[in-house]
């Protein structure tokens, strides 16, 4: 199925803009500008405006010509729509104290990374060469979350999920029956296309906007991997379309990880871990140079990018398996972050999961 840019696909998650127009005038039964609210609505509907969003983007002069009013009056009318959709400013102080109140989630397998993340929910991208430990990272994060009582939603595009391995990690954290109970909290769903992924994430973010009291969302969402679905897509659709779809997906994921305004729902914010692949980079000079796939639009869209590699960070990018250290030493590089400096953490993978090396 070809990817089409219809209104359904790019629906925003917050929703004010998608409300029908009559919600705008429901509180003002008295006539607006000498015209009754009902006839005004009919006029606007006749011009194919159905949602508040349509009115928001309307130029004032166009509304002026339709309703035969002056431009100032048209702007007054538009202000009604603007003020409905406008975001209420929150001071940085309130944001800082709010994020202090959120219980710290412990999902990062490596202590140094956990310190850099600070425990607030975030959209993390983990990229790296095949076999470097992307899925291990996700499994370890899932084990940590499940062990601490949180739920995990695993969206699998590569069919690389292993319940066996997850149980092994969980048993190192909490032996016996408790580990089996924790395994119950991890849900796995196979996801075949970008379209499918998009609709699942969109459903999650809408339930976040709707649900206030009950924790309807998992504590961790894992997407392994976004490159697998996006690359399958690119054969059928053009690159700009794919970029737009990825940007839209990122926008929905950001709605998921955004801190809630209300205090009751503060604990109901999931973290998202997305994995990405690497590909050969012809512009890198050396034959072995690689770079993270999916291009710059996606790179702009993720706030945190962690690059896993077999070789210490250098000019050739993440490197490949052939250059690996014989003792299994790997490196995690915090390549992009909104709040922490570039950081390299050496680690290896053992039966417990990822282990930080000094």
């Amino acid at each position, binding site marked *: 199925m070809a990817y089409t840019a219809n209104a359904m696909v790019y629906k*925003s998650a917050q929703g004010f803009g998608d409300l029908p127009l009559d919600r705008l005038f429901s509180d003002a039964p008295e006539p607006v500008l000498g015209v009754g609210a009902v006839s005004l609505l009919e006029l606007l509907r006749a011009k194919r405006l159905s949602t508040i969003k349509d009115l928001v983007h309307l130029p004032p002069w166009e509304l002026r010509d339709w309703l*035969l*009013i*002056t431009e100032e009056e048209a702007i007054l009318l538009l202000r009604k729509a*603007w003020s409905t959709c406008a*975001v209420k400013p929150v001071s*940085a102080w309130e944001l*800082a104290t709010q*994020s202090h109140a959120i219980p710290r989630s412990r999902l990062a397998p490596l202590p140094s990374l956990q310190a850099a993340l600070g425990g607030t929910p975030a959209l993390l991208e983990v990229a790296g060469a095949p076999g470097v430990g992307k899925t291990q990272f996700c499994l370890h994060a899932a084990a940590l979350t499940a062990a601490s009582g949180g739920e995990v939603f695993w969206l699998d595009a590569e069919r690389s999920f292993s319940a066996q391995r997850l149980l092994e990690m969980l048993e190192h954290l909490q032996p016996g029956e408790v580990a089996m109970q924790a395994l119950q909290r991890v849900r796995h769903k196979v996801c075949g296309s970008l379209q499918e992924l998009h609709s699942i994430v969109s459903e999650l973010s809408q339930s976040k906007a709707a649900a206030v009291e009950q924790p309807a969302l998992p504590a961790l969402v894992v997407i392994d991997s976004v490159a697998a679905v996006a690359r399958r897509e690119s054969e059928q659709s053009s690159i700009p379309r794919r970029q737009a779809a990825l940007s839209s997906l990122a926008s929905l994921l950001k709605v998921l990880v955004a801190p809630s305004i209300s205090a009751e729902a503060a604990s109901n914010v999931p973290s998202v871990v997305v994995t990405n692949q690497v590909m050969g980079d012809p512009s890198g000079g050396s034959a072995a140079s690689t770079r993270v796939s999916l291009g710059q639009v996606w790179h702009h869209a993720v706030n945190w990018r962690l690059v896993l590699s077999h070789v210490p960070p250098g000019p050739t990018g993440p490197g490949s398996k052939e250059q690996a250290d014989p003792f299994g030493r790997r490196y995690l590089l915090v390549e992009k972050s909104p709040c922490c400096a570039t950081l390299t953490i050496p680690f290896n993978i053992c039966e417990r999961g990822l282990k930080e090396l000094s």
Partner: protein
Amino acid sequence: MDAKLPASAQALDVRILHSIPTPVADALISRGCRQAPDVTPEALKEVLAQHHVAGLEQRANSMLSACRQEAAKDAWRSADSALSLLRKTARPKVTLPCTGLNQLLGNALRGGALLEVFGLPGSGKTQFCLQLCAAVQIPCDPNISIVEAVFIDTEGSFVPQRYLQVCEALLAERRPHLDPPAAAAQLEAVMRSLHVCRAYDATELYSTIKQLGAFIKGRRRPVGAVVVDSIAFSFRHELMDNTAQRARVLAEIAGTLRQLGADHDLLAVGREDMGGEVTNHMTTRFGREDTWLAPALGETWAHQASTQLRLEKMACWQQPGLGRATLTKSVEKAACSCAYRISHKGLRDDGPEAMPVDGGCTGLAPLWGRIA
């Protein structure tokens, strides 16, 4: 010679008046009312009645008074002289803690300016925004109190803890004599007067910017800067199928930001002025023969900002956080660049001061970093 302009300020064509809708203007012209002074109450009422307008009397009166007001404006006399504008810019401006960037940007850091920052992922655009906000909020002059600022976040990249860190470092540099409790109180005041708007889509971004004027007027203290980080993100996947609408919405956003800057200039007396600021993504364009890197959102948007700054990360693994800022569009300066370093304190100097770009003057066109 008398400087009196031909009565053109008065004799505006009815078709270009903001207060007269186009169908009404056409009907007026067919009745012989070509210019604003010709419009009579009788003719206007007649035309509106013809269009079956409800509340005829009231509508005709309001339209007529709006039309008269518009025609009464004297564009020539009310315009500012260049001298008065020059005196205006003699006010204190925003000073960044990085001298290289200060020299590079010069007057672009004054009131009413629209500054665009673009760069590849991870080049420090968000860090630049945070540093600029902190520099606006904590003026160099210790006698000036904390200034307010607005940060519109479309990417979710505003981390309050990071802003706290940047402000703490800048407070320690600019107010070194404060004792710890007073410094903590100042830091809280700074954090309380930064207003963060998290806009999730293009509709929210547009509405928020449109309503910003009312918000700023409602504040008791002056607002020093409006930062939008980033303008490109929402437009990467929204309004895609309607390029004309997207271009108009972007132009409207830029116009509103400039207007906010100019309006605030009139209100603020001897304080920091308003500077609108936006960040943009850098993207790869696919041409017929080659690919190159360019700021996102295309040529229409590139016209909007009067100053454009490109940030790039230096490919230097021994020294992380080192970057280079290049002025790619400016009214006052030739293209030049400077180095900066992103540390835990924010953006700071690194290396020699502003020097000419290799290859000399590149003219007004933005520099496109070509990929070989």
